[in-house]
């Protein structure tokens, strides 16, 4: 790396970086808020909605058990969605900014 004199403010002000920042912020916080809410539905449901959790759905398997298992699926899905989006979009956008800095297009 030979970017000892990088103009950070210029990169920050660059429309490409601003676009990356906007996309990432919206996407990351959306996922984060969703996952926290979904997670806390489990302890809240187990404590305050016992009847729903105890309802048998599939043989002896009740709703609470399926809901707990769904937490795993949702966590994995969030990881999958995020990595897809980051690999396909965020990394490419960041790479473009790095290229612009290295080639002197952002000074």
């Amino acid at each position, binding site marked *: *790396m030979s970017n000892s004199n990088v103009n950070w403010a210029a990169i920050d002000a660059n429309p490409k*970086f601003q676009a990356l920042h906007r996309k990432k912020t919206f996407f990351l916080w959306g996922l984060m808020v969703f996952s926290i809410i979904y997670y806390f539905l489990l302890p809240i449901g*187990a*404590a305050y909605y016992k009847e729903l959790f105890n309802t048998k759905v599939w043989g002896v398997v009740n709703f609470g058990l399926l809901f707990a298992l769904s937490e795993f699926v949702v*966590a994995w899905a*969030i*990881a999958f969605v995020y990595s897809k989006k980051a690999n396909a979009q965020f990394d490419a956008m960041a790479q473009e900014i790095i290229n612009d800095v290295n080639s002197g297009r952002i000074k």
Partner: protein
Amino acid sequence: MSKNHINFFLAAIALLGCTAAYAAGGAVADEFKWMTFAVFGVIIAITMAITFWAARSTHTTSEFYAAGRSVSGIQNGWAIAGDYLSAASFLGIAGLISLYGYDGFMYSVGWLVAYITVLLVIAEPCRNIGKYTMGDILAFRNDPKKTKTVAALSTITVSTFYLTAQMVGGGVLIKTLIGIDYEISVIGVGILMLAYVVFGGMKATTWVQITKAVLLVTASIILVAMVWAPYGFSLPGYLQAVVGDSDVQKQVAKLLGDKAANMTPEELGQRFLEPGLFLKNPIDQISLGLALVLGTAGMPHILMRFFTVPTAQAARTSVIWAMGIIGGFYVLTLFLGTGAAMLVGPDKIASIDAGGNMAGPLLAQFLGGGEQSYLGNFMLAFVAAVAFATIVAVVAGLVLASASAMAHDIYVGVIRGDHATPKEQVVAARVASVIVGVIAIIVGIMAKGQNVAHLVALAFAVAASSNLPAVFLTLYWKKCNTNGIIAGMVVGTLTAIGLVMVSPNMTYPKAVIASANKVLNGEPAVPAKEAQPAVERSSFMCELFALEGCVTAKPAQPATPEKAAKPGAAEKLAKLNEKATALETSLPTIADVVAKATAEADLAKVKKDIAATEKAKAKAEADLAKFEGQTTSIMGLEKPFFLLKNPGLISIPLGFLMVILFSLFTRDKRAEEMWDELYVRQNTGINAEAATAH
């Protein structure tokens, strides 16, 4: 280097010698002990070979702390899983499920969801900005000396709580499993862990964690396949068998007590799959969830793992692999736990270890053919050896985190002002590792017999209330500055520790003495009670603190019949002994085969009851002697003041609030000016530390 190698092999040989010489007692019968030691020997030899190989390429600071940043994303994912699946989650959760069913499984969920926070907001920025420690991230745009000192102190605090819990848990585990003395197992874990860390640094630690994670997952898959296969891998079919199992039904009846009176066996079994047998206080449950979900992202040894990969993309890949492995493992715990409940039985599991920690190993023994079979004991030995490797690997990661905070942050960063030659830095890192390792061994031995659950709760609560707000706001808030970080970390740590000290986690002699007296002197009869209406008046503060004038909300209570007086231990023993003598004298005179078998079974049961009563009596007497004359906890309280076991609900928001308030009150121009650089770097990876070894 060659001298180092000789020393560390001498240490390894000494350790194997110790283990063999001090064996006595435990869950493995004496004639199968040799097999346990053989399996332990093989696993220790494998990890030693890894360390030998890693030591050859550990010369620079980057190699020592960060494995030369040459660990791949997938490798790091396995290493994170190895770092995370501690004895508590490996043995503890399976145990909780085997004793309490559904509630045990709820623990698994929080421990996985924690990684979403790590993935979305921590892993990539940390990789792009940090060098070796959490202190590096905090010092980026703040006063390096002040922030590094506070970060190092917090790292050492969190690591020490977690480390002690692991050491105590490990010592007890090895003692219960194969009968090696507690002190010897703690020293054994300590010496091995020191060998990995001091000679092989992060590279050896990483590979030991990978090896252990692979062994752990393999062992679990085999056990689950054996448990589940007879039901054609059908979930409802398998759980139907769990619900219909008489041991499970008996356990639920025992847990519910009087409430089980009118329930059919099917209802009792079904109750095992429903919430509420273990976790009683929903607010406490939410507080614990908060500490878990946010604490993992503030754990120094987890943060440190992201400095070992070459790029932010690799950091992302590693969290995704870790989530796959950890989540997959936790789904397996459902089968390990319920399988152990059904096949081994909760009674037997709890009789060997009250917390249920032996559920997994006992299940392995059962599936292999039981206590008297070669395969059964081989499988038990294998699970025991994996558990041992687990403790060593987790402890190694924690020691590395503390040692790097001491050497890199405090010694090199603060004392030497970042002016130390690379060689001096590596020496400092190794010296710090030895110091931390020796302290860990001493603290582990001193903490013998302590309840470690509150230490784990503390570690997560401090990490979530102190480290996470500081790291998070440094990364995502422009106005965050030195004073904010210091205030947040100090207040977060002190609040978390302070609240735990006055919480139900501590020992309250008055209650212990009262229950010991109950065991020894019996309980008086309880008259019948009329039904009580529900009490609804309760404020949120009353749920959290034992304040004066607080009335706790209670659901309506049904009428209860009169309860007979319970005899004291001595009276109970006398009766049992009388019964045993009567049975023993009558046995030789019984000619009928069936009657004789019944009498023999009765005698065995009475003898078991005598042993259990004597044990309870001895414990009650020991408790009385231990707490004689004391009425208050070490904090001077007769009963807990803070009612939650986990302080997260209060200390986490407070930690965030302090960072925000102090940052706003004492604006720092430099920190705000450097925000552009920090934010661009964390998002693009420009100027990030490159890999140094391939």
